[in-house]
């Protein structure tokens, strides 16, 4: 009977179990949950902060799932892998044997070595449930909050705290918010929306040192705060694989079957660096839908299958106070844009294919663009003029519409 | 019931009964869908009629616009019409139908031929009719090869030769003043069925004065024809089909009692399809997708729905006809045919009663 070990207890890990069980109902599965609890929907923590969800409801799967799938749960961290003996060693010294191993170790927050950071009395990260619960307990109506980092995590935290704290200030070294996914024009829409709700932004500026509850900024100004949130960024957790000589870039390098460079070891989720089909290069794509798909593929292949995942692309869906920004692919090639006061629609076209898009405001039908990038639909086969105005099956051939509307897909 | 020439005596060969008959049309009820050309009405309207006719076990008529290739599959329930313009007439066309109808005239506009405005002639119509797109299709008044009964006989037999004597030939005429003499001639020309079209019949396009002032009512025409053919002993040479404002099952019963074998309906069928009688068919803007060729309007008529509604109408009439017959104590349609005793006139003058051959109510 085959023995499967999964390091990690997140979305990719759970999908890995789905993948394994789709082929192997008998094999022994052990899931090492380093965070001390079973998988939860991490993106929901900001909604919990806001009050739109609550911490009791964020389980990704119910308890019964692990029982039904006979998945043994271990609430420790894995400290070492032995690729020759094929074992994983836990904190308490126990060595778990494996026939197939999946590293779904996710990412860790980046904590820059700020000078004087230890003098800050109330500092929080914003990646885990524990972080969010702590922050939730600490924030008061008279709190002044400073968030370092205007990326996806920092802004979601800001949105969550709007109305709960006296003031929310967000700073970032980049000249715009959401700098990893949006350009100046697009980012402007999102920044304006948050500013309308009371968030203050200090861009092209960041803290260089801290003095108790004061941040001394690069620009020279001083920002006083009661609560500090560090949301600078995350880094893929690759140490276990790297330590044993596995090929790593910014993430654990995997092929289309989620195999690492080490035999019988797979990887899935935010910790991996797979092939970005829209860019044509390797890249860390840390987003929940991809973690789900990668986990499943890894599991299927660990159980003897030969599934390939060749259409992974970066994608993001983020929204603040009703203004949504959906994007996918990469902003390479020629940009075609329609802009109004309410939002923007930008499509990137390269070599006759859609390579990326950004939709802000009216996001109807965004998934049609996403599918075109993933499936590499040649633009010559669709009505381009129509597609720019209206993402709709109407822009595609009658055959495609017949297939979608008259058959089971 | 059957339409076609009936034998006038029983023939035996020794002890065996000779059952050979000239070709007959079998109908599940004494009503057929009358001629409405593809061009005056739409593809979807024709499809609805074809589907309904085949499901009901009756027939529909192509009209003078030819037969669209997609409808050859319904050939067993189709009467193909040969009109004076000879639109769409070729060998395969004649073979495709269950019967061939020579259209000498039509009730709504006796004396002139069919008229399809150029706006209604697009590529599909052009191809089916074998005429150029966009120009008016006006059929000549007479067939240019029929100037006498002998000429008609020649055409009837040419068609029979082409189709191997396997299909009945129908001759359709408008109800005019000397209709009895005309049909007497036709009955001797080799035609199997005579169709008479009365002056209140509908049309897709006709000059207004002619539509409103030329022709005679079908009841008078029918009664005089039936009487004359019986008097001449040739009534069984042909079956009689009448049309021209047959709008209810009661009209069907009256027509059969006056001497018809079956009725043609057209306006009633269009009403079943959704027609509102706005009477602007000639513009080609029919908003029910019936009398138009504009694709965005034609799609409003889904043949699945249209054919169901036609079937509903005919099924209802069928029930009513049976009910009425039951009330008369008759159990076969043949026993109603020409049975003038079943009819009485109300508010008709002596001359009308005489021509119709019926008594006044109270007598």
């Amino acid at each position, binding site marked *: 009977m085959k023995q499967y070990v999964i390091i990690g207890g997140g979305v990719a890990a759970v*999908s890995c179990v789905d993948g394994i069980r789709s082929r192997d109902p008998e094999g022994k599965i052990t899931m090492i949950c380093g965070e001390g609890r079973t998988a939860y*929907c*991490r*993106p*929901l923590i900001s*909604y919990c902060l806001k009050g*739109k*969800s609550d911490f009791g*409801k*964020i*389980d*990704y*799967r119910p308890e019964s799932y692990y029982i039904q799938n006979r998945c043994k749960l271990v609430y420790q961290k894995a400290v070492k892998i032995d690729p020759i003996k094929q074992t994983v060693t836990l904190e308490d010294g126990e060595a778990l044997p494996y026939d197939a191993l999946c590293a779904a170790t996710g990412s860790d927050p980046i904590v820059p070595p700020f000078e004087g950071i230890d003098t800050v009395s109330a500092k929080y990260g914003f990646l885990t449930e524990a972080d969010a619960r702590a922050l939730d307990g600490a924030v008061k109506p008279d709190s002044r909050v400073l968030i370092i980092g205007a990326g996806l995590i920092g802004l979601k935290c800001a949105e969550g705290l709007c109305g709960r704290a006296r003031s929310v200030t967000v700073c970032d070294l980049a000249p715009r918010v959401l700098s990893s996914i949006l350009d100046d024009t697009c980012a402007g829409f999102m920044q304006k929306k948050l500013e309308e709700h009371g968030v203050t932004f200090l861009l092209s500026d960041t803290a260089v040192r801290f003095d108790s509850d004061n941040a001394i900024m690069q620009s020279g100004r001083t920002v006083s705060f009661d609560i500090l949130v560090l949301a600078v960024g995350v880094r893929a957790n690759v140490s276990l694989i790297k330590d044993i000589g596995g090929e790593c870039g910014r993430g654990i390098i995997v092929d289309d079957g989620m195999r690492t460079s080490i035999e019988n070891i797979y990887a899935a989720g935010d910790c991996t660096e797979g092939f970005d089909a829209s860019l044509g290069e390797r890249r860390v794509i840390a987003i*929940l*839908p991809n973690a*789900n*798909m990668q986990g*499943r593929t890894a599991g299927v292949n660990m159980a003897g299958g030969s599934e390939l995942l060749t259409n992974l692309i970066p*994608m*993001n*869906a*983020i*929204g603040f106070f*009703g203004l*949504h920004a*959906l994007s*996918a692919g990469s902003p390479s090639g020629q940009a075609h844009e329609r802009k109004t006061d309410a939002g923007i629609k930008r499509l990137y076209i390269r070599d006759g294919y859609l390579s990326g898009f950004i939709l802000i405001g009216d*996001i*109807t*039908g*965004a*998934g*049609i663009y*996403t*599918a075109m990038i993933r499936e590499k639909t040649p633009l010559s086969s669709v009505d381009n003029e*129509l597609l720019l105005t*209206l*993402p*709709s*099956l*109407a822009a595609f051939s*009658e055959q495609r*519409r017949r297939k*979608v*509307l*008259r*058959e*089971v*897909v | 019931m059957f339409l076609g020439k009936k034998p006038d005596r029983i023939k035996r060969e020794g002890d065996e009964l000779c059952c050979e008959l000239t070709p007959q049309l079998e109908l599940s009820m004494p009503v057929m869908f009358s001629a409405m050309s593809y061009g005056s009405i739409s593809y979807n309207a024709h499809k609805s009629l074809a589907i309904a006719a085949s499901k009901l076990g009756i027939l529909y008529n192509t009209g003078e616009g030819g037969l669209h290739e997609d409808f050859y599959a319904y050939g067993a329930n189709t009467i193909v019409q040969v009109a004076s313009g000879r639109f769409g007439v070729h060998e395969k066309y004649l073979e495709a139908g269950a019967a061939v109808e020579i259209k000498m005239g039509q009730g709504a506009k006796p004396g002139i031929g069919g008229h399809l405005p150029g706006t209604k002639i697009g590529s599909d119509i052009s191809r089916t009719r074998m005429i150029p797109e966009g120009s008016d299709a006006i059929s000549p008044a007479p067939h240019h090869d029929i100037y006498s009964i002998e000429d008609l006989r020649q055409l009837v037999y040419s068609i029979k030769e082409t189709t191997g004597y396997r299909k009945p030939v129908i001759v359709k005429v408008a109800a005019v003043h000397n209709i009895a003499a005309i049909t007497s001639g036709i009955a001797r020309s080799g035609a199997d069925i005579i169709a008479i079209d009365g002056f209140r019949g509908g049309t897709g396009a006709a000059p207004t004065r002619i539509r409103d002032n030329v022709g005679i009512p079908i009841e008078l025409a029918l009664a005089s024809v039936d009487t004359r053919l019986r008097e001449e002993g040739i009534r069984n040479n042909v079956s009689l089909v009448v049309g021209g404002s047959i709008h209810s099952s009661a009209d069907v019963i009256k027509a059969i009692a006056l001497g018809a074998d079956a009725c043609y309906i057209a306006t009633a069928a269009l009403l079943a399809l959704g027609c509102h009688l706005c009477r602007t068919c000639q513009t080609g803007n029919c908003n029910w997708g019936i009398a138009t060729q504009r694709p965005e309007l034609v*799609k*409003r008529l*889904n043949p*699945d*729905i249209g054919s169901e509604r036609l079937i509903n109408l005919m099924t209802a009439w069928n029930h009513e006809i049976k009910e009425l017959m039951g009330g008369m104590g008759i159990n076969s349609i043949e026993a109603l045919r020409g049975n003038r005793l079943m009819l009485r006139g109300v508010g008709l003058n002596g001359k009308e009663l005489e021509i119709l051959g019926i008594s006044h109510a109270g007598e």
Partner: protein
Amino acid sequence: MKRVFVDEQWCLGCHLCEYNCAYANSGADSMVKALKDRQIFPRVRVEDTGKITFALSCRHCSDPICVKGCISGALSKGTDGAVRIDRDKCVGCFTCILLCPYGAVMAGEGGAAIKCELCLENACGAPACVAGCPNRALVYEERG
């Protein structure tokens, strides 16, 4: 399982499917109350280019990608095959809209995601759009 299938040759772009859908999912007891003077949120959308018209709604895919990407577990495929959104769990992140290859998921009232659920969860019991289509462009049947 039965699904709603569309024949674009019969769709007239009359939008009755949208109105019937909005009414069926509104909880109101009259169509007037449900539709008059308010923004409506139908789960079917008529796409009309002038030449092509059809009504688009959730295909209830065999292997739905929206379910894979849902961050809260609100989207799920039931044992009856229908894909549903749990209103209580949806936080309105719109990852499903980002993923649906047909554009069938839409923003609903209050910012949650909505999509066709075959009227299995409302008082109609069977798709209102199909019942209300005047030209049989929408049918509800088993195929494939």
